[in-house]
């Protein structure tokens, strides 16, 4: 077999122009396949592990998916807020063991700001019921204290004691900064691989405080309430964006969910995070299957092109194959030679794709994480991807049999002297 490998390499190199085009097609398809698989797995893992141990997430009535997206992933916006009184009423239900209110809407240099209570750090779980841990400092206690997620601290190079200002909304428009009320970093969280890493956490009262002299999303002109006198005002929030609930008994979740849905005072929606994520997954699953289907089709086209190129070249290669037979190659060797050539092209295509996917993951991973709240993409191959590659090579092997078989038959018939 070794002499065949050498000949196969030289032969493929000789026809590098035509084979190169099919190589590109195969490489493109495999890149698509691998990318879809990798993003799907990262998203699946990232999404699933973002929230754990929470029975219900409650917010203004909207689509369940939208609510999970902004309450857990801090992506997108709530259509409406929840009245503080409603929150208190529901949190007081005997079935509820703990509750954590959430207020979203501000940002800091592109990272979302979450207003909540210290109970958040106690009850929020992620992954396999992991609690949040601190690498430095502690939860907020003072009014203008802030706790940073791991990525915020790393990306912006903040340490304990750093002074930061928040911005209203996404912070992209000028004049939206709450510059007069800076915050102090008192805690930095350990990395979790969830949207917590990208979030700046402050107290609910602080959110109220920075909006005291604001109205309708902009500062009231001529009115300025300095930071040191805000505590004189009532900093009880009137509305929050959403809240998380934990129950004494998980099986009671449906009853409470129904109760919240029937709540007369305000239109509210309570979702089970697991169920909402499943629904998200079903939708994503459809897209993902379509993408995979298209990628496999492109791959089939690439393979068909390869087979066509190999077949087309067979006629002019008959003398060359006869020469090989004269030095002692059998038709079997001819078969293997052609299969080797096809497989070499496929292998090269796969290696090229791997290089592309790995560098894309390395370069683009952080951006994807920022945009969609995913954990960064892994660089190494996963089990699912290895299975995919096995399927790819199996398909290539099957297709390579076709021109190889034809060459085998030709070689048998031609012998040492092809009749041309």
């Amino acid at each position, binding site marked *: 077999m070794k002499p065949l490998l050498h000949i196969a390499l030289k032969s493929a190199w000789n026809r590098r122009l035509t084979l190169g085009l099919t190589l590109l097609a195969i490489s493109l398809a495999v890149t698509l396949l691998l990318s879809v698989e990798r993003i799907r797995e990262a998203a699946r893992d990232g999404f699933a592990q973002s929230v754990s141990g929470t029975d219900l997430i409650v917010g203004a009535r909207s689509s369940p998916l939208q609510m999970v997206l902004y309450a857990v992933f801090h992506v997108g916006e709530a259509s409406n807020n929840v009245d503080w009184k409603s929150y208190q009423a529901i949190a007081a239900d005997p079935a509820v063991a703990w509750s954590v209110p959430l207020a979203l809407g501000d940002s800091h240099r592109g990272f979302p700001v979450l207003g909540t209570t210290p109970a958040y750090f106690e009850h929020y779980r992620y992954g396999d019921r992991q609690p949040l841990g601190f690498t430095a400092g502690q939860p907020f206690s003072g009014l203008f204290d802030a706790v940073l997620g791991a990525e915020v601290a790393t990306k912006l190079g903040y340490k304990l004691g750093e002074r930061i200002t928040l911005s209203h909304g996404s912070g992209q428009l000028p004049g939206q900064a709450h510059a007069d009320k800076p915050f102090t970093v008192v805690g930095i969280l350990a990395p979790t691989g969830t949207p917590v890493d990208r979030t700046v956490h402050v107290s609910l009262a602080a959110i109220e405080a920075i909006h005291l002299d604001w109205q309708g999303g902009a500062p009231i002109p001529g009115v300025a309430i300095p930071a040191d006198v805000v505590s004189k005002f009532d900093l009880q929030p009137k509305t929050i964006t959403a809240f998380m609930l934990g129950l004494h008994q998980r099986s009671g979740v449906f009853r409470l969910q129904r109760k919240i849905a029937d709540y007369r005072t305000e239109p509210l929606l309570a979702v089970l995070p697991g169920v909402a994520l499943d629904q998200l997954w079903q939708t994503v699953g459809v897209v993902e299957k379509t993408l995979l289907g298209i990628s496999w089709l492109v791959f089939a086209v690439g393979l068909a092109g390869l087979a066509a190129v190999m077949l087309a070249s067979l006629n002019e290669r008959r003398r060359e194959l006869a020469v090989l037979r004269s030095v002692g190659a059998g038709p079997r060797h001819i078969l293997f030679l052609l299969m080797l050539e096809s497989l070499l092209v496929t292998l090269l295509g796969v290696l090229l794709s791997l290089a592309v996917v790995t560098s894309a993951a390395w370069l683009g991973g952080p951006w994807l994480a920022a945009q969609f709240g995913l954990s960064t993409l892994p660089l190494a191959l996963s089990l699912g991807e290895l299975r995919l590659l096995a399927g790819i090579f199996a398909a290539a092997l099957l297709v390579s049999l076709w021109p190889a078989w034809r060459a085998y038959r030709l070689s048998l018939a031609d012998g040492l*002297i092809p009749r041309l």
Partner: protein
Amino acid sequence: MNPPAIAITNLAFRWRSADAFCLELANATVNAGKSLFLHGPSGSGKSTLLNLIGGVLLPTHGSVSLLGQALGELSASRRDAFRADHLGFVFQQFNLIPYLSVLDNVLLPCRFSTRRASRVGQPEAEARRLLAGLDLDPTLLGRPAAELSVGQQQRVAAARALIGQPEILIADEPTSALDAERQAVFVELLLSEAKRAGSAVVFVSHDLRLATHFDQSLALNA
């Protein structure tokens, strides 16, 4: 007494779908170190005969024995191995793999036959020696075979056929593509090298003028 290099007895071949025999040869024997000139018009079954001697085809009647081994007794893959070990071929044209270098082409048989490789010792040196003996410019060694002229290609083919001292050398119209002055020179070079190696030579051609170079002569009927 060594068995003859080639022993053909009552040979006849017919394609399965055909009625008539395309080749009939009563007897032919070539001893080691001897040369046979085989001539016949086109259609007389020369290609078939070469395929039979090469072990690619099996006769319908009769037998072909090489070095005492009846080819009919060997399986197809054993025949391929036998061919690799003991035979060298030169064809009329397109002898070389165009994308391999001259050197790689000459060394091909050594890749497929460990026996021939072991007889050579230093393959590259032997290849150079053969090519020099066949009067080929040594600077061409690294070039892809497709870049050579027809005459140069034929000489490379001869070197390839001769490397590793195969016991049998088959040449099928090797000079037909060459011009007249070079034909005689080529034949002489080929035969002298073959004699050095002690190989039996079968030379097929329609050009009777060349017959004088050979020990025996045989005609194939149409």
